[in-house]
């Protein structure tokens, strides 16, 4: 269920539940995981996970660089 929200000053387009965690999507296609104990947002760096979340949000996946 997508909800507009502002967390830690970042405007979120929506959120999605996945494997027991809540992930947030901002306007720049960044995905965040909310770290409850520290009340902070953690930027998700796992590209595969990012694309999985984007897919759940019906957003376009991002490119992935192998090697480099």
């Amino acid at each position, binding site marked *: 269920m997508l909800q507009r929200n502002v967390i830690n000053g970042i405007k979120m387009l929506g959120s999605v539940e996945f494997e027991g965690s809540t992930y947030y999507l901002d306007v720049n296609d*960044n995905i965040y995981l909310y770290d409850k104990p520290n009340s902070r947002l953690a*930027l998700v*760096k*796992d*590209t*595969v*996970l*990012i*694309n*999985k979340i984007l897919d759940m949000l019906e957003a*376009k*996946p*991002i*490119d*992935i*660089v*192998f*090697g*480099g």
Partner: protein
Amino acid sequence: MAPRKYKKYNFNSEYKAHGYPESVWPLLNDYFSRDAAEFDLTDKEIKTKLDTMFMNLETIEIDDQPDSSNNALYKPNEKKIILNFAGMSQRNESYVAHLCTMFHEFGHVDENFAAPTPNSFMHIGANGRFKGVAFNEIHKEMRAARLTMNMRLSADMGPGADPKCMMRHVGYNDLMFIGTMMHTALGVSEREFLSAAEKGPEYFRETMSKKFSDPKTFDDFMATITFASDSIHAIKYKEGTLSTTDYRNIANLTATIYGECLSVMDARISSELQRSEADPKTFSEKTRYELERLAINYKHGITKNTPFSLEQLNELPEVSTTNQKVLAFEIAVTNRRKLGKKEYESLVEELSIEDVNIDETLNRYGLTLPSIADKPDVDTSEYKKDFLEEDYGTDYWDNKDCIESIKAMETDEQIRHTGVKVLQFRPKSNTAMDKLNALNTLDEVASYDSQLSSQDFIEVDVKTKNESPEL
């Protein structure tokens, strides 16, 4: 030694859901199980690898991206992988280095995709042609590298410098390379190298430094290897860090050793490289041909006996810069090596390579323009024998299917090129063609072929059957 026990993964339901044929399920399960055991991957990391494998991939292309790196770029929206050689092109690296980088970057695709494409390491192991050697060898190399460099082999699972590119930086593929580079450069066997590495970094250093008269040289060597591992994709030159000579040596070593890595894919290449020095210029035509064949196969997903036309060659995206024109030219040269100088010049014109000196290009790789009267060195009976024995067994001479197959191929060229064939040479006259068809043994074909001159042949596109215009 008893086989190592490890946790067995079973993702059959997932393979089924993604349409993977049931025959490869056990292989894939074995792949993930071995991977987890070999590199101490967590269940989550294994799951990530599995998810990656199910990315939708339809094509693999080669192109320069607007940056200065070499990498494999997966574009999920377009369902394709781009093997990016922008760094290679900018540095005007050698053709062999281009090819090696291509394989290296493709290795990154493999390590992340596991087995989604027909020509992946996994599939090569799975389809029986290479009898699974590739899979085992690659893991052995990774293990050697891991032990020596004390690297976290699952780095391709961890966060990289780019927050959106977790798979940047060091992956299995790099470590596989480094292991091979190190034991070869140290002049020790892989067994000796691995044995020393297993006893810890100090023992390794003490043992291996004896290979050098001055311990400091060994330290320099290790620093160089570390540098190489850090910049393996680009094989790049750090201003002020290494001299140009050092860089060239590393680039050459990289190319050579990576060629050795290919041995896990094809034993013929391996045996060839053992006879060559650590200089890509000494690669024989046969090795060069095999590299090119594999390269083209990888790029186009071409399977054995799939024809590859000049038209396709002209469409290659690498025909975009001078350096890449040379690449395309050299592929063409090798595939059309029965042509004379005039024909090569025509080819250059055809490919619009005005600024390439043919002789210099060929000399750079120790090649000379062969005449049609010269039998290419790879076209020996022994070499053909390898292919024929592989397909028809040791009694292939008495095998009717073998003879029929050879006749169907119509020329020696097809036998020599097996996987990739650009254009087919056939006698101009129907009389000569009929006579060739009537021959029953390879010796008879070879004998008759040697009586013909270049003027007696025309080229035929094996796919369209169209005859090429006069060259």
